[in-house]
Protein backbone atom coordinates (compact mmCIF):
# COMPACT_ATOMS: atom_id res chain seq x y z
CA UNK A 1 0.00 0.00 0.00
CA UNK A 2 1.00 3.63 0.11
CA UNK A 3 1.76 3.33 3.79
CA UNK A 4 5.34 2.38 3.32
CA UNK A 5 7.70 2.94 0.49
CA UNK A 6 10.12 0.05 0.34
CA UNK A 7 13.83 0.63 0.75
CA UNK A 8 15.21 3.86 2.12
CA UNK A 9 11.83 5.49 2.76
CA UNK A 10 10.87 2.88 5.28
CA UNK A 11 13.58 4.02 7.71
CA UNK A 12 11.83 7.36 8.11
CA UNK A 13 9.92 7.78 11.32
CA UNK A 14 6.36 8.98 11.24
CA UNK A 15 3.97 10.17 13.85
CA UNK A 16 1.23 7.76 14.75
CA UNK A 17 -1.73 10.07 14.21
CA UNK A 18 -5.28 9.84 12.88
CA UNK A 19 -4.07 10.02 9.33
CA UNK A 20 -1.71 7.13 9.86
CA UNK A 21 -4.40 5.13 11.61
CA UNK A 22 -6.70 5.59 8.66
CA UNK A 23 -4.02 4.28 6.33
CA UNK A 24 -3.55 1.26 8.56
CA UNK A 25 -7.29 0.63 8.60
CA UNK A 26 -7.30 0.68 4.84
CA UNK A 27 -4.42 -1.76 4.68
CA UNK A 28 -6.47 -4.18 6.79
CA UNK A 29 -9.69 -3.57 4.87
CA UNK A 30 -7.84 -4.35 1.65
CA UNK A 31 -7.00 -7.71 3.22
CA UNK A 32 -10.73 -8.43 3.71
CA UNK A 33 -10.81 -7.78 7.43
CA UNK A 34 -13.97 -5.71 7.17
CA UNK A 35 -14.47 -2.17 8.42
CA UNK A 36 -15.46 -2.80 12.04
CA UNK A 37 -12.69 -5.22 12.81
CA UNK A 38 -10.09 -3.10 11.04
CA UNK A 39 -11.11 -0.13 13.19
CA UNK A 40 -10.89 -2.16 16.35
CA UNK A 41 -7.53 -3.71 15.52
CA UNK A 42 -5.91 -0.39 14.66
CA UNK A 43 -7.42 1.28 17.74
CA UNK A 44 -6.04 -1.44 20.01
CA UNK A 45 -2.68 -1.22 18.37
CA UNK A 46 -2.59 2.57 18.79
CA UNK A 47 -3.60 2.57 22.43
CA UNK A 48 -1.06 4.50 24.46
CA UNK A 49 1.03 5.15 21.34
CA UNK A 50 -0.74 8.05 19.64
CA UNK A 51 1.71 10.82 18.83
CA UNK A 52 4.73 8.54 19.05
CA UNK A 53 7.22 8.58 16.23
CA UNK A 54 7.69 5.16 14.72
CA UNK A 55 9.34 3.68 11.65
CA UNK A 56 7.16 1.99 9.06
CA UNK A 57 8.58 -1.34 10.10
CA UNK A 58 7.81 -0.74 13.76
CA UNK A 59 4.26 0.22 12.87
CA UNK A 60 3.76 -2.94 10.88
CA UNK A 61 5.27 -5.03 13.62
CA UNK A 62 2.87 -3.57 16.14
CA UNK A 63 -0.06 -4.13 13.83
CA UNK A 64 1.00 -7.70 13.09
CA UNK A 65 1.44 -8.36 16.81
CA UNK A 66 -2.09 -7.15 17.44
CA UNK A 67 -3.49 -9.41 14.73
CA UNK A 68 -1.44 -12.35 15.99
CA UNK A 69 -2.70 -11.72 19.53
CA UNK A 70 -6.29 -12.05 18.35
CA UNK A 71 -5.54 -15.12 16.26
CA UNK A 72 -3.49 -17.01 18.83
CA UNK A 73 -6.66 -17.82 20.70
CA UNK A 74 -8.16 -19.65 17.74
CA UNK A 75 -5.09 -21.40 16.35
CA UNK A 76 -5.72 -24.99 17.41
CA UNK A 77 -5.06 -28.21 15.53
CA UNK A 78 -8.01 -30.53 15.03
CA UNK A 79 -8.41 -32.48 18.28
CA UNK A 80 -7.93 -36.22 18.06
CA UNK A 81 -10.01 -38.38 20.36
CA UNK A 82 -9.57 -41.94 21.50
CA UNK A 83 -13.15 -42.63 20.45
CA UNK A 84 -13.53 -44.98 17.50
CA UNK A 85 -14.42 -44.08 14.87
CA UNK A 86 -13.85 -40.37 15.28
CA UNK A 87 -16.29 -38.92 12.77
CA UNK A 88 -15.24 -35.78 10.87
CA UNK A 89 -17.91 -34.11 8.79
CA UNK A 90 -16.68 -31.62 6.20
CA UNK A 91 -19.05 -28.88 5.08
CA UNK A 92 -19.02 -25.59 3.19
CA UNK A 93 -20.21 -23.60 0.21
CA UNK A 94 -19.58 -24.75 -3.35
CA UNK A 95 -16.02 -24.96 -4.57
CA UNK A 96 -14.39 -23.93 -1.29
CA UNK A 97 -12.05 -26.93 -1.23
CA UNK A 98 -13.83 -29.56 0.88
CA UNK A 99 -12.95 -32.59 -1.23
CA UNK A 100 -9.33 -31.59 -1.68
CA UNK A 101 -8.97 -30.89 2.03
CA UNK A 102 -10.35 -34.34 2.85
CA UNK A 103 -7.73 -35.87 0.56
CA UNK A 104 -5.00 -33.93 2.34
CA UNK A 105 -6.32 -34.75 5.83
CA UNK A 106 -6.65 -38.44 4.99
CA UNK A 107 -3.04 -38.50 3.87
CA UNK A 108 -1.81 -36.79 7.03
CA UNK A 109 -3.77 -39.02 9.39
CA UNK A 110 -2.72 -42.09 7.47
CA UNK A 111 0.91 -41.02 7.77
CA UNK A 112 0.33 -40.61 11.50
CA UNK A 113 -0.58 -44.28 11.65
CA UNK A 114 -4.35 -43.89 11.76
CA UNK A 115 -6.77 -46.25 10.13
CA UNK A 116 -8.80 -43.85 7.98
CA UNK A 117 -11.98 -44.28 5.92
CA UNK A 118 -13.54 -41.67 3.62
CA UNK A 119 -17.23 -41.43 2.73
CA UNK A 120 -18.11 -39.73 -0.56
CA UNK A 121 -21.14 -37.84 0.70
CA UNK A 122 -21.39 -35.56 -2.32
CA UNK A 123 -23.82 -37.65 -4.32
CA UNK A 124 -24.97 -34.59 -6.26
CA UNK A 125 -22.18 -32.90 -8.22
CA UNK A 126 -21.00 -34.36 -11.50
CA UNK A 127 -17.98 -36.63 -10.94
CA UNK A 128 -17.64 -35.61 -7.29
CA UNK A 129 -17.30 -39.29 -6.34
CA UNK A 130 -14.64 -39.95 -8.97
CA UNK A 131 -12.72 -36.92 -7.75
CA UNK A 132 -12.70 -38.21 -4.19
CA UNK A 133 -11.76 -41.71 -5.31
CA UNK A 134 -8.60 -40.30 -6.86
CA UNK A 135 -7.79 -38.59 -3.57
CA UNK A 136 -8.45 -41.86 -1.74
CA UNK A 137 -5.96 -43.63 -3.98
CA UNK A 138 -3.37 -40.91 -3.49
CA UNK A 139 -3.77 -41.08 0.28
CA UNK A 140 -4.00 -44.87 0.30
CA UNK A 141 -7.37 -44.76 2.05
CA UNK A 142 -10.59 -46.57 1.11
CA UNK A 143 -13.49 -44.48 -0.18
CA UNK A 144 -17.07 -45.56 0.44
CA UNK A 145 -19.42 -44.43 -2.29
CA UNK A 146 -23.05 -44.41 -3.30
CA UNK A 147 -24.56 -43.83 -6.75
CA UNK A 148 -24.99 -40.26 -8.04
CA UNK A 149 -28.35 -38.88 -6.98
CA UNK A 150 -28.76 -41.15 -3.96
CA UNK A 151 -29.52 -39.86 -0.47
CA UNK A 152 -26.33 -38.62 1.23
CA UNK A 153 -27.80 -39.35 4.67
CA UNK A 154 -28.19 -43.01 3.86
CA UNK A 155 -24.62 -43.13 2.57
CA UNK A 156 -23.49 -41.55 5.84
CA UNK A 157 -25.42 -44.21 7.76
CA UNK A 158 -23.84 -47.02 5.76
CA UNK A 159 -20.42 -45.45 6.18
CA UNK A 160 -20.92 -45.30 9.96
CA UNK A 161 -21.86 -48.96 10.02
CA UNK A 162 -18.86 -49.90 7.93
CA UNK A 163 -16.37 -47.78 9.86
CA UNK A 164 -17.64 -49.20 13.16
CA UNK A 165 -17.41 -52.76 11.85
CA UNK A 166 -13.90 -52.17 10.53
CA UNK A 167 -12.77 -50.54 13.76
CA UNK A 168 -11.57 -47.48 11.84
CA UNK A 169 -9.93 -44.68 13.82
CA UNK A 170 -11.29 -41.92 11.64
CA UNK A 171 -14.21 -41.53 9.29
CA UNK A 172 -14.00 -38.44 7.06
CA UNK A 173 -17.31 -37.54 5.43
CA UNK A 174 -17.38 -35.29 2.36
CA UNK A 175 -20.55 -33.35 1.58
CA UNK A 176 -21.85 -31.51 -1.45
CA UNK A 177 -21.20 -27.78 -1.59
CA UNK A 178 -24.17 -25.72 -0.46
CA UNK A 179 -24.80 -22.03 -0.02
CA UNK A 180 -25.88 -21.23 3.52
CA UNK A 181 -29.02 -19.39 2.40
CA UNK A 182 -30.44 -22.52 0.79
CA UNK A 183 -32.78 -23.77 3.52
CA UNK A 184 -33.51 -27.05 1.74
CA UNK A 185 -29.84 -27.95 1.40
CA UNK A 186 -29.09 -26.91 4.96
CA UNK A 187 -31.91 -29.20 6.09
CA UNK A 188 -30.30 -32.00 4.08
CA UNK A 189 -27.15 -31.39 6.11
CA UNK A 190 -29.09 -31.50 9.39
CA UNK A 191 -30.53 -34.80 8.27
CA UNK A 192 -27.07 -36.22 7.60
CA UNK A 193 -26.11 -35.25 11.15
CA UNK A 194 -29.26 -36.76 12.66
CA UNK A 195 -28.61 -40.02 10.87
CA UNK A 196 -24.98 -40.14 11.98
CA UNK A 197 -26.17 -39.64 15.58
CA UNK A 198 -28.43 -42.62 15.30
CA UNK A 199 -25.31 -44.74 15.02
CA UNK A 200 -23.30 -42.77 17.56
CA UNK A 201 -24.86 -39.99 19.55
CA UNK A 202 -21.50 -38.38 20.22
CA UNK A 203 -20.81 -38.01 16.49
CA UNK A 204 -19.84 -36.11 14.42
CA UNK A 205 -16.90 -35.34 16.67
CA UNK A 206 -15.63 -32.60 14.42
CA UNK A 207 -17.58 -30.60 11.89
CA UNK A 208 -15.15 -28.67 9.75
CA UNK A 209 -16.32 -25.67 7.78
CA UNK A 210 -14.05 -25.10 4.78
CA UNK A 211 -13.70 -21.44 3.78
CA UNK A 212 -12.12 -20.07 0.61
CA UNK A 213 -9.54 -17.31 1.27
CA UNK A 214 -10.76 -15.30 -1.70
CA UNK A 215 -14.16 -14.91 -0.05
CA UNK A 216 -14.95 -11.51 1.34
CA UNK A 217 -17.41 -10.52 4.03
CA UNK A 218 -19.88 -13.26 3.12
CA UNK A 219 -17.71 -15.63 5.15
CA UNK A 220 -19.37 -14.10 8.22
CA UNK A 221 -22.78 -15.25 7.02
CA UNK A 222 -21.33 -18.64 6.12
CA UNK A 223 -19.96 -19.24 9.59
CA UNK A 224 -23.02 -17.90 11.36
CA UNK A 225 -25.48 -20.12 9.50
CA UNK A 226 -23.36 -23.26 9.21
CA UNK A 227 -22.61 -23.01 12.90
CA UNK A 228 -26.26 -22.64 13.75
CA UNK A 229 -27.49 -25.47 11.55
CA UNK A 230 -24.56 -27.85 11.47
CA UNK A 231 -22.78 -27.27 14.77
CA UNK A 232 -19.46 -26.33 13.20
CA UNK A 233 -16.57 -27.13 15.53
CA UNK A 234 -13.66 -25.74 13.55
CA UNK A 235 -12.52 -23.94 10.41
CA UNK A 236 -10.12 -24.66 7.59
CA UNK A 237 -9.19 -21.87 5.20
CA UNK A 238 -8.03 -22.91 1.73
CA UNK A 239 -6.27 -21.13 -1.14
CA UNK A 240 -3.98 -19.07 1.06
CA UNK A 241 -1.26 -19.75 -1.52
CA UNK A 242 -2.92 -17.08 -3.66
CA UNK A 243 -2.78 -13.36 -3.05
CA UNK A 244 -5.93 -13.18 -0.93
CA UNK A 245 -4.94 -12.67 2.69
CA UNK A 246 -8.01 -14.13 4.36
CA UNK A 247 -8.41 -11.15 6.66
CA UNK A 248 -12.01 -12.09 7.31
CA UNK A 249 -10.60 -14.75 9.66
CA UNK A 250 -9.81 -11.98 12.12
CA UNK A 251 -13.41 -10.77 12.04
CA UNK A 252 -14.50 -14.39 12.47
CA UNK A 253 -12.18 -14.94 15.42
CA UNK A 254 -13.63 -11.82 17.03
CA UNK A 255 -17.20 -12.80 16.50
CA UNK A 256 -17.36 -16.58 16.73
CA UNK A 257 -14.06 -17.66 18.30
CA UNK A 258 -14.16 -20.97 16.42
CA UNK A 259 -10.81 -22.75 16.28
CA UNK A 260 -8.90 -22.61 13.01
CA UNK A 261 -7.38 -26.02 12.45
CA UNK A 262 -5.46 -25.78 9.22
CA UNK A 263 -4.89 -23.83 6.03
CA UNK A 264 -4.75 -24.98 2.41
CA UNK A 265 -1.72 -23.71 0.55
CA UNK A 266 -1.95 -25.48 -2.78
CA UNK A 267 -3.52 -28.29 -4.75
CA UNK A 268 -1.06 -31.04 -3.86
CA UNK A 269 -1.61 -33.63 -1.17
CA UNK A 270 0.91 -32.11 1.23
CA UNK A 271 -0.40 -28.58 0.85
CA UNK A 272 -2.21 -28.47 4.18
CA UNK A 273 -0.45 -26.62 6.98
CA UNK A 274 -1.20 -25.82 10.59
CA UNK A 275 -2.59 -22.33 11.12
CA UNK A 276 0.28 -20.15 12.33
CA UNK A 277 -0.95 -16.83 13.79
CA UNK A 278 2.39 -15.04 13.42
CA UNK A 279 2.85 -16.02 9.82
CA UNK A 280 -0.74 -15.18 9.04
CA UNK A 281 -0.41 -11.76 10.67
CA UNK A 282 2.85 -11.03 8.88
CA UNK A 283 1.32 -11.84 5.50
CA UNK A 284 -1.82 -9.89 6.27
CA UNK A 285 -0.02 -6.71 7.26
CA UNK A 286 2.63 -7.04 4.58
CA UNK A 287 5.31 -7.39 7.25
CA UNK A 288 6.64 -10.43 5.43
CA UNK A 289 7.41 -8.21 2.42
CA UNK A 290 9.21 -5.39 4.15
Amino acid at each position, binding site marked *: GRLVGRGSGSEQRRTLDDDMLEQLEELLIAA*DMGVDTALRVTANMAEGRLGKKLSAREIKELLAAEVARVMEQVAKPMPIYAHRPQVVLVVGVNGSGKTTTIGKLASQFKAAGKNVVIAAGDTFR*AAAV*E*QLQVWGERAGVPVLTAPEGSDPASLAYDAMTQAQADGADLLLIDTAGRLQNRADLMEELSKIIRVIRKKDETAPHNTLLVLDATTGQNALNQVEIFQKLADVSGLVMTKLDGTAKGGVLVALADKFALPIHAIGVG*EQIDDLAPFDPEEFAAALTGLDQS
Partner: protein
Amino acid sequence: MFENLSERLSGVFDRLTKQGALSEEDVKTALREVRVALLEADVSLPVARDFVKKVQDQATGQSVTKSVTPGQQVVKIVHDALVDVLRGDEDLGTLKIDNPPAPILMVGLQGSGKTTTTGKLAKRLKDKEGKRVLMASLDVYRPAAMDQLAVLGAQIGVDTLPIVAGQKPVDIAKRAKQQAALGGYDVYMLDTAGRLQIDEVLMQEVEDVRDVVSPRETLLVVDGLTGQVAVEVAEEFDAKIGISGVVLTRMDGDGRGGAALSMRAVTGKPIRFVGLGEKMDAIETFEPERVAGRILGMGDIVALVEKA
Protein backbone atom coordinates in the same frame (compact mmCIF):
# COMPACT_ATOMS: atom_id res chain seq x y z
CA MET B 1 -25.78 -9.56 9.01
CA PHE B 2 -24.91 -6.10 7.72
CA GLU B 3 -27.16 -3.09 7.79
CA ASN B 4 -28.22 -2.01 4.35
CA LEU B 5 -27.47 1.46 3.13
CA SER B 6 -30.91 2.92 3.77
CA GLU B 7 -30.78 1.75 7.38
CA ARG B 8 -27.39 3.35 7.77
CA LEU B 9 -28.55 6.58 6.21
CA SER B 10 -31.78 6.81 8.12
CA GLY B 11 -29.68 6.99 11.25
CA VAL B 12 -27.57 9.77 9.79
CA PHE B 13 -30.45 11.82 8.47
CA ASP B 14 -32.74 11.45 11.44
CA ARG B 15 -30.88 14.38 12.88
CA LEU B 16 -31.46 16.50 9.81
CA THR B 17 -34.98 17.79 9.67
CA LYS B 18 -34.54 20.38 6.99
CA GLN B 19 -35.66 19.62 3.48
CA GLY B 20 -34.64 21.37 0.30
CA ALA B 21 -31.26 20.96 -1.32
CA LEU B 22 -28.63 18.50 -0.09
CA SER B 23 -25.89 20.58 1.48
CA GLU B 24 -22.26 19.67 1.05
CA GLU B 25 -22.15 18.71 4.69
CA ASP B 26 -25.22 16.41 4.38
CA VAL B 27 -23.68 14.72 1.41
CA LYS B 28 -20.33 14.25 3.11
CA THR B 29 -21.94 12.67 6.13
CA ALA B 30 -24.02 10.40 3.96
CA LEU B 31 -21.10 9.37 1.81
CA ARG B 32 -19.13 8.18 4.78
CA GLU B 33 -21.90 5.67 5.28
CA VAL B 34 -21.95 4.86 1.57
CA ARG B 35 -18.26 4.08 1.67
CA VAL B 36 -18.71 1.67 4.55
CA ALA B 37 -21.70 0.04 2.87
CA LEU B 38 -19.66 -0.51 -0.30
CA LEU B 39 -16.74 -1.97 1.62
CA GLU B 40 -19.03 -4.34 3.49
CA ALA B 41 -20.36 -5.41 0.12
CA ASP B 42 -16.75 -6.29 -0.83
CA VAL B 43 -16.26 -3.45 -3.28
CA SER B 44 -12.52 -2.96 -3.43
CA LEU B 45 -11.12 -0.05 -1.49
CA PRO B 46 -9.76 2.06 -4.37
CA VAL B 47 -12.94 1.52 -6.36
CA ALA B 48 -15.10 2.51 -3.39
CA ARG B 49 -12.98 5.62 -2.87
CA ASP B 50 -13.26 6.76 -6.50
CA PHE B 51 -16.92 5.99 -6.59
CA VAL B 52 -17.67 8.03 -3.49
CA LYS B 53 -15.77 11.00 -4.90
CA LYS B 54 -17.77 10.82 -8.09
CA VAL B 55 -21.09 10.65 -6.28
CA GLN B 56 -20.14 13.54 -4.03
CA ASP B 57 -19.90 15.85 -7.01
CA GLN B 58 -23.19 14.61 -8.43
CA ALA B 59 -25.15 14.83 -5.21
CA THR B 60 -24.17 18.18 -3.77
CA GLY B 61 -26.81 20.83 -4.42
CA GLN B 62 -29.40 18.41 -5.76
CA SER B 63 -32.87 19.33 -4.59
CA VAL B 64 -34.65 16.84 -2.43
CA THR B 65 -38.06 15.75 -3.62
CA LYS B 66 -40.72 16.63 -1.04
CA SER B 67 -42.06 13.13 -0.54
CA VAL B 68 -38.76 11.41 0.14
CA THR B 69 -36.21 11.84 2.87
CA PRO B 70 -32.70 13.11 2.17
CA GLY B 71 -31.49 9.60 2.96
CA GLN B 72 -33.69 8.09 0.31
CA GLN B 73 -32.55 10.72 -2.13
CA VAL B 74 -28.90 9.88 -1.54
CA VAL B 75 -29.60 6.18 -1.91
CA LYS B 76 -31.20 6.85 -5.25
CA ILE B 77 -28.26 8.91 -6.47
CA VAL B 78 -25.82 6.25 -5.33
CA HIS B 79 -27.87 3.50 -6.91
CA ASP B 80 -28.04 5.27 -10.25
CA ALA B 81 -24.31 5.90 -10.21
CA LEU B 82 -23.73 2.21 -9.48
CA VAL B 83 -25.92 1.19 -12.37
CA ASP B 84 -24.00 3.57 -14.62
CA VAL B 85 -20.66 2.00 -13.78
CA LEU B 86 -21.99 -1.56 -13.92
CA ARG B 87 -23.66 -1.05 -17.26
CA GLY B 88 -20.87 0.82 -19.00
CA ASP B 89 -21.60 2.57 -22.23
CA GLU B 90 -20.73 0.19 -25.00
CA ASP B 91 -23.50 -1.76 -26.65
CA LEU B 92 -22.79 -5.33 -25.71
CA GLY B 93 -24.87 -7.41 -28.03
CA THR B 94 -24.60 -11.16 -27.84
CA LEU B 95 -21.49 -13.30 -27.56
CA LYS B 96 -19.25 -13.20 -30.63
CA ILE B 97 -19.83 -16.60 -32.06
CA ASP B 98 -20.07 -15.90 -35.76
CA ASN B 99 -17.48 -17.56 -38.10
CA PRO B 100 -18.01 -21.16 -37.07
CA PRO B 101 -16.45 -22.88 -35.33
CA ALA B 102 -16.11 -20.04 -32.82
CA PRO B 103 -13.85 -20.79 -29.84
CA ILE B 104 -14.84 -19.67 -26.34
CA LEU B 105 -12.14 -19.89 -23.68
CA MET B 106 -13.15 -20.18 -20.01
CA VAL B 107 -10.62 -19.11 -17.38
CA GLY B 108 -10.45 -18.32 -13.68
CA LEU B 109 -9.26 -19.21 -10.21
CA GLN B 110 -9.72 -22.66 -8.69
CA GLY B 111 -13.29 -23.57 -7.87
CA SER B 112 -14.83 -20.39 -9.30
CA GLY B 113 -17.35 -22.31 -11.39
CA LYS B 114 -15.71 -22.64 -14.82
CA THR B 115 -16.74 -26.19 -15.60
CA THR B 116 -20.32 -25.67 -14.44
CA THR B 117 -20.57 -22.39 -16.36
CA THR B 118 -19.15 -24.02 -19.48
CA GLY B 119 -22.01 -26.52 -19.34
CA LYS B 120 -24.60 -23.83 -18.65
CA LEU B 121 -23.46 -21.64 -21.52
CA ALA B 122 -23.28 -24.57 -23.91
CA LYS B 123 -26.82 -25.52 -23.01
CA ARG B 124 -28.00 -21.97 -23.45
CA LEU B 125 -26.35 -21.64 -26.87
CA LYS B 126 -27.88 -24.91 -27.92
CA ASP B 127 -31.39 -24.28 -26.59
CA LYS B 128 -31.75 -20.55 -27.23
CA GLU B 129 -29.75 -20.10 -30.40
CA GLY B 130 -29.85 -23.54 -31.89
CA LYS B 131 -26.06 -23.80 -31.98
CA ARG B 132 -24.11 -27.01 -32.26
CA VAL B 133 -21.62 -26.89 -29.45
CA LEU B 134 -18.54 -28.98 -28.64
CA MET B 135 -17.03 -28.81 -25.15
CA ALA B 136 -13.49 -29.81 -24.28
CA SER B 137 -11.80 -30.01 -20.89
CA LEU B 138 -8.20 -28.83 -20.79
CA ASP B 139 -7.99 -29.55 -17.08
CA VAL B 140 -5.33 -32.22 -16.81
CA TYR B 141 -4.68 -31.50 -13.13
CA ARG B 142 -7.78 -31.63 -10.98
CA PRO B 143 -8.89 -35.20 -10.26
CA ALA B 144 -11.86 -36.21 -12.46
CA ALA B 145 -12.18 -32.72 -13.97
CA MET B 146 -12.59 -34.19 -17.44
CA ASP B 147 -15.19 -36.68 -16.22
CA GLN B 148 -17.08 -33.81 -14.65
CA LEU B 149 -17.44 -32.02 -17.98
CA ALA B 150 -18.30 -35.27 -19.77
CA VAL B 151 -21.08 -35.99 -17.26
CA LEU B 152 -22.47 -32.49 -17.72
CA GLY B 153 -22.29 -32.86 -21.50
CA ALA B 154 -24.30 -36.08 -21.32
CA GLN B 155 -26.85 -34.39 -19.03
CA ILE B 156 -27.47 -31.46 -21.36
CA GLY B 157 -27.04 -33.27 -24.64
CA VAL B 158 -23.90 -31.45 -25.74
CA ASP B 159 -20.92 -33.30 -27.21
CA THR B 160 -17.61 -33.38 -25.38
CA LEU B 161 -14.25 -34.02 -26.96
CA PRO B 162 -13.19 -37.61 -26.28
CA ILE B 163 -10.72 -37.80 -23.41
CA VAL B 164 -7.20 -38.85 -24.35
CA ALA B 165 -5.11 -39.58 -21.31
CA GLY B 166 -1.72 -37.90 -21.06
CA GLN B 167 -2.32 -35.14 -23.59
CA LYS B 168 -1.17 -31.58 -22.81
CA PRO B 169 -3.69 -28.70 -22.68
CA VAL B 170 -2.33 -27.08 -25.86
CA ASP B 171 -2.66 -30.36 -27.72
CA ILE B 172 -6.17 -30.89 -26.45
CA ALA B 173 -7.01 -27.39 -27.67
CA LYS B 174 -5.64 -28.21 -31.11
CA ARG B 175 -7.63 -31.40 -31.22
CA ALA B 176 -10.78 -29.55 -30.17
CA LYS B 177 -10.25 -26.97 -32.89
CA GLN B 178 -9.80 -29.66 -35.51
CA GLN B 179 -12.73 -31.71 -34.28
CA ALA B 180 -14.96 -28.61 -34.21
CA ALA B 181 -14.08 -27.80 -37.81
CA LEU B 182 -14.43 -31.37 -39.08
CA GLY B 183 -17.59 -32.02 -37.11
CA GLY B 184 -19.36 -28.90 -38.32
CA TYR B 185 -19.81 -27.35 -34.89
CA ASP B 186 -20.79 -23.70 -34.53
CA VAL B 187 -19.00 -23.17 -31.25
CA TYR B 188 -16.34 -24.97 -29.27
CA MET B 189 -15.84 -24.22 -25.62
CA LEU B 190 -12.59 -24.79 -23.81
CA ASP B 191 -12.86 -25.36 -20.07
CA THR B 192 -9.50 -24.87 -18.39
CA ALA B 193 -8.03 -25.85 -15.04
CA GLY B 194 -8.32 -23.37 -12.20
CA ARG B 195 -5.18 -21.31 -11.72
CA LEU B 196 -3.88 -18.50 -9.56
CA GLN B 197 -3.18 -15.26 -11.41
CA ILE B 198 0.34 -15.33 -9.96
CA ASP B 199 1.12 -18.85 -11.18
CA GLU B 200 3.48 -18.06 -14.04
CA VAL B 201 3.69 -21.56 -15.43
CA LEU B 202 -0.06 -22.07 -15.60
CA MET B 203 -0.73 -18.55 -16.88
CA GLN B 204 1.78 -19.20 -19.66
CA GLU B 205 0.02 -22.45 -20.43
CA VAL B 206 -3.30 -20.71 -21.00
CA GLU B 207 -1.58 -18.01 -23.07
CA ASP B 208 -0.29 -20.78 -25.31
CA VAL B 209 -3.79 -22.19 -25.61
CA ARG B 210 -5.09 -18.75 -26.52
CA ASP B 211 -2.46 -18.43 -29.25
CA VAL B 212 -3.46 -21.77 -30.73
CA VAL B 213 -7.19 -21.11 -30.98
CA SER B 214 -7.55 -17.28 -31.00
CA PRO B 215 -10.75 -17.30 -28.94
CA ARG B 216 -13.67 -15.11 -30.03
CA GLU B 217 -14.64 -14.78 -26.39
CA THR B 218 -12.46 -15.28 -23.32
CA LEU B 219 -14.65 -15.33 -20.25
CA LEU B 220 -13.26 -14.90 -16.76
CA VAL B 221 -15.40 -16.87 -14.32
CA VAL B 222 -15.37 -15.25 -10.88
CA ASP B 223 -17.09 -16.26 -7.66
CA GLY B 224 -19.67 -13.62 -6.75
CA LEU B 225 -18.61 -13.96 -3.10
CA THR B 226 -15.06 -12.80 -3.85
CA GLY B 227 -13.60 -10.11 -1.65
CA GLN B 228 -10.94 -7.48 -2.20
CA VAL B 229 -8.77 -9.68 -4.41
CA ALA B 230 -11.29 -9.53 -7.27
CA VAL B 231 -9.61 -6.48 -8.77
CA GLU B 232 -6.18 -8.05 -8.88
CA VAL B 233 -7.53 -11.29 -10.32
CA ALA B 234 -9.43 -9.52 -13.08
CA GLU B 235 -6.53 -7.20 -13.88
CA GLU B 236 -3.98 -9.99 -14.07
CA PHE B 237 -6.08 -12.35 -16.14
CA ASP B 238 -6.89 -9.49 -18.48
CA ALA B 239 -3.28 -8.34 -18.74
CA LYS B 240 -1.90 -11.80 -19.41
CA ILE B 241 -4.62 -13.50 -21.40
CA GLY B 242 -6.93 -10.69 -22.46
CA ILE B 243 -10.49 -11.28 -21.33
CA SER B 244 -13.59 -10.21 -23.24
CA GLY B 245 -16.05 -10.53 -20.38
CA VAL B 246 -16.80 -11.79 -16.89
CA VAL B 247 -19.25 -14.35 -15.52
CA LEU B 248 -20.19 -13.92 -11.87
CA THR B 249 -21.18 -17.19 -10.20
CA ARG B 250 -22.94 -18.05 -6.93
CA MET B 251 -25.20 -15.04 -7.17
CA ASP B 252 -27.89 -17.31 -5.75
CA GLY B 253 -26.14 -16.83 -2.42
CA ASP B 254 -26.65 -13.96 -0.01
CA GLY B 255 -23.40 -12.23 -0.95
CA ARG B 256 -23.58 -8.57 -1.86
CA GLY B 257 -21.61 -9.00 -5.08
CA GLY B 258 -19.39 -5.95 -4.75
CA ALA B 259 -16.75 -7.76 -6.81
CA ALA B 260 -18.89 -6.96 -9.85
CA LEU B 261 -18.38 -3.24 -9.36
CA SER B 262 -14.67 -3.62 -8.65
CA MET B 263 -13.96 -5.66 -11.75
CA ARG B 264 -16.13 -3.55 -14.00
CA ALA B 265 -14.64 -0.30 -12.79
CA VAL B 266 -11.05 -1.46 -13.04
CA THR B 267 -10.97 -3.52 -16.24
CA GLY B 268 -13.86 -1.95 -18.13
CA LYS B 269 -14.79 -5.46 -19.21
CA PRO B 270 -18.49 -6.25 -19.25
CA ILE B 271 -20.11 -8.67 -16.85
CA ARG B 272 -21.94 -10.95 -19.21
CA PHE B 273 -23.78 -13.50 -17.12
CA VAL B 274 -24.56 -14.39 -13.55
CA GLY B 275 -24.69 -17.94 -12.24
CA LEU B 276 -27.67 -18.58 -10.00
CA GLY B 277 -27.31 -22.17 -8.92
CA GLU B 278 -25.79 -25.52 -9.64
CA LYS B 279 -28.31 -26.69 -12.18
CA MET B 280 -27.56 -26.38 -15.85
CA ASP B 281 -30.22 -23.75 -16.51
CA ALA B 282 -29.26 -21.54 -13.56
CA ILE B 283 -27.68 -18.75 -15.58
CA GLU B 284 -29.00 -15.35 -16.62
CA THR B 285 -27.72 -12.31 -18.41
CA PHE B 286 -26.29 -9.66 -16.14
CA GLU B 287 -28.77 -7.00 -14.98
CA PRO B 288 -27.00 -3.90 -13.62
CA GLU B 289 -30.07 -2.70 -11.67
CA ARG B 290 -30.43 -5.93 -9.77
CA VAL B 291 -26.80 -6.14 -8.84
CA ALA B 292 -26.71 -2.46 -7.84
CA GLY B 293 -29.63 -3.05 -5.48
CA ARG B 294 -27.84 -6.03 -4.03
CA ILE B 295 -24.60 -4.20 -3.45
CA LEU B 296 -26.54 -1.65 -1.42
CA GLY B 297 -28.49 -4.40 0.30
CA MET B 298 -31.83 -2.95 -0.77
CA GLY B 299 -34.14 -2.44 -3.68
CA ASP B 300 -37.43 -0.82 -2.80
CA ILE B 301 -36.06 2.64 -1.97
CA VAL B 302 -35.17 3.14 -5.60
CA ALA B 303 -38.66 2.35 -6.78
CA LEU B 304 -40.04 4.65 -4.10
CA VAL B 305 -37.96 7.62 -5.19
CA GLU B 306 -38.70 6.96 -8.81
CA LYS B 307 -42.42 7.17 -8.13
CA ALA B 308 -42.19 10.31 -5.99
